[in-house]
């Protein structure tokens, strides 16, 4: 198990100051005030559930919620500059799109992006590694790598956009896995993270099984919300043997047996994207 569990969270409910996001919505005939997000609430449930599970299962394990940034304290500059690499879990809740998360003021790419004077503010990115094992993007479509206009199609050689896969690969600088969605997410259905914490920390399920089962559970509970039937929980993870000859499949990592070092894309390790698609009922 990790020697400590430090958590950094970012959650945005209010997008009225994110002009980029607003313009994007307007181009689809919508506005930011159409529906308030429940991101801050979801974040709190994530933290409370995780810490409750840790205190039940591993009472002596050091735990700390080091950064708790919401709305106007969750700007791109904050996300870029804070020392997130000292946290085992990094969690973001808010709006998302393919390889993008939307902070309070600006979008941020889920890729290495760029830095320095010549870098467009819309192309700021971040890599994840060092102590950070698990990143959770509780936001729509961040892990979707389909070509534009094909976001709801099944993953195959004709629908995949390799440049988007490359963006995701570029953020793996030691991080073990990234959880998120290939589709829209369950905005405000906090039970995902209370189930996830229980399965992953207390019940001894693997990372992906914990996340996938937590989504199944909410999917079954919340099916009366008809859009929920398009939900596809997803994971970007590493599989293969590193240069030291150690085999990794970070989707199948157990909390109690997690590899206590950063895992980098080396040897024959490669990044995979996996999602779960709920089947169409047939009589």
């Amino acid at each position, binding site marked *: 198990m990790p020697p400590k569990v430090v958590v950094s969270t970012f959650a945005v409910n209010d997008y009225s100051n994110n002009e980029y996001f607003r313009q994007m919505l307007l181009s689809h005939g919508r506005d930011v005030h159409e529906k308030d997000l429940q991101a801050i609430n979801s974040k709190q449930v994530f933290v409370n559930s995780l810490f409750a599970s840790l205190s039940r299962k591993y009472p002596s394990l050091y735990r700390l919620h080091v950064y708790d940034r919401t709305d106007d304290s969750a700007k791109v500059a904050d996300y870029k500059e804070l020392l997130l690499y000292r946290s085992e879990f990094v969690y973001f809740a808010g709006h998302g799109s393919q390889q993008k998360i939307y902070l309070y003021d600006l979008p941020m790419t889920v890729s290495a992006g760029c830095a320095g004077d010549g870098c467009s503010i819309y192309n700021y990115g971040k890599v994840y590694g060092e102590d950070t094992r698990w990143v959770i993007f509780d936001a729509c479509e961040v892990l979707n790598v389909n070509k534009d206009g094909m976001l709801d199609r099944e993953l195959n050689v004709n629908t995949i956009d390799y440049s988007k896969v490359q963006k995701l690969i570029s953020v793996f600088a030691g991080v073990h896995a990234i959880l998120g969605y290939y*589709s829209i997410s369950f905005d405000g259905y906090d039970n995902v993270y209370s189930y996830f914490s229980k399965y992953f920390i207390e019940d001894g399920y693997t990372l992906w099984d914990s996340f996938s089962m937590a989504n199944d559970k909410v999917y079954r509970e919340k099916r009366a919300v008809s859009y929920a039937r398009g939900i596809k929980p997803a994971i970007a993870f590493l599989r293969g043997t590193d240069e030291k000859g150690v085999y990794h499949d970070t989707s199948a990592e157990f909390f109690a047996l997690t590899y206590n070092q950063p895992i980098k894309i080396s040897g024959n390790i490669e990044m995979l994207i996996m999602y779960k698609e709920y089947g169409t009922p047939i*009589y």
Partner: protein
Amino acid sequence: MKKMNMTIVSAIVILMSCITFAKPVIEIQDKAQTFLKNRNLQIQKNRLQNNSGIIGKSFVVAVDENSNKTFMKIKEMMAKSFDVVESKKNLKIRNKNIKMDISNLNLERSVCAKRMLNQILPRNFASQFRLVSVDVEKSFSRSLGVRVEGYTFNYKRLFNNRIVRNANNYLNISIDGLGRLKEAEIAVEDLTTTSVTVDVDENFSENKTTIDSLVGADFEFVDFVDESGYRKRESVSKIEVNGAAEAYCEILVEKKKILLPCLSYTSKIDVSSGEKIDYIIDVPHSRKSWSQYRHEQKNAIFNRYIH
């Protein structure tokens, strides 16, 4: 003059209802039609044989929430060959040595699903479950391309040979891409057939009218996600009913759960923008059984979207 005023009022009312809700077109496809026609013939035959009056009836089922006899029986049987973990409402079953044959999965899904069921459950319990859907886990990597990493077979419990459409009677079997059992999860409730009945439609046009009544009451809009990933709410223009099954739908009457006989339809819904969405529509056995629970001011809640 009075008559003319009445005509104008009626015209306005008709016009208003046209403006507020243009009813979707309902098309029942061959498979569902055949199911309904065969079913109706059987009901008529049974009624004549039993000399049971002009109108067909079907029995309401009660859920005994204070008892867990069926649950305990399954637990006892499963514990003989599996690691069983019990939680509040379900059992989780594991056995690393079990491997399912999924070689013909794409061609004969139901055959494969049945074989899997028999591998997990004793035959007398296996016959109480029916496959409804299969979830798929897919992965992509540069070296291996797209691969299936696992499946979850979702079964619903059958009671009196009807699918129990609530959240507490199911079996889900999860396997990896090679067919090895990861976990099965099972939930069952104690169900009892009561002497209370509801009226049953027994001709095809009535079946269709009953669907029409429900659609008229509940299907003005649907929420869905478009291909760009945006959540949308649009009006329904057409409902294509593809499959049908006898079922029980859970409703609450005076805070008690009962299972009302219903017909469950798998369908494709066309929304106004032209997109198609898969849907399950649960419909009471007749318009009369509908009105009994909807219009006598009982607290009736139909779970229309349960998979």
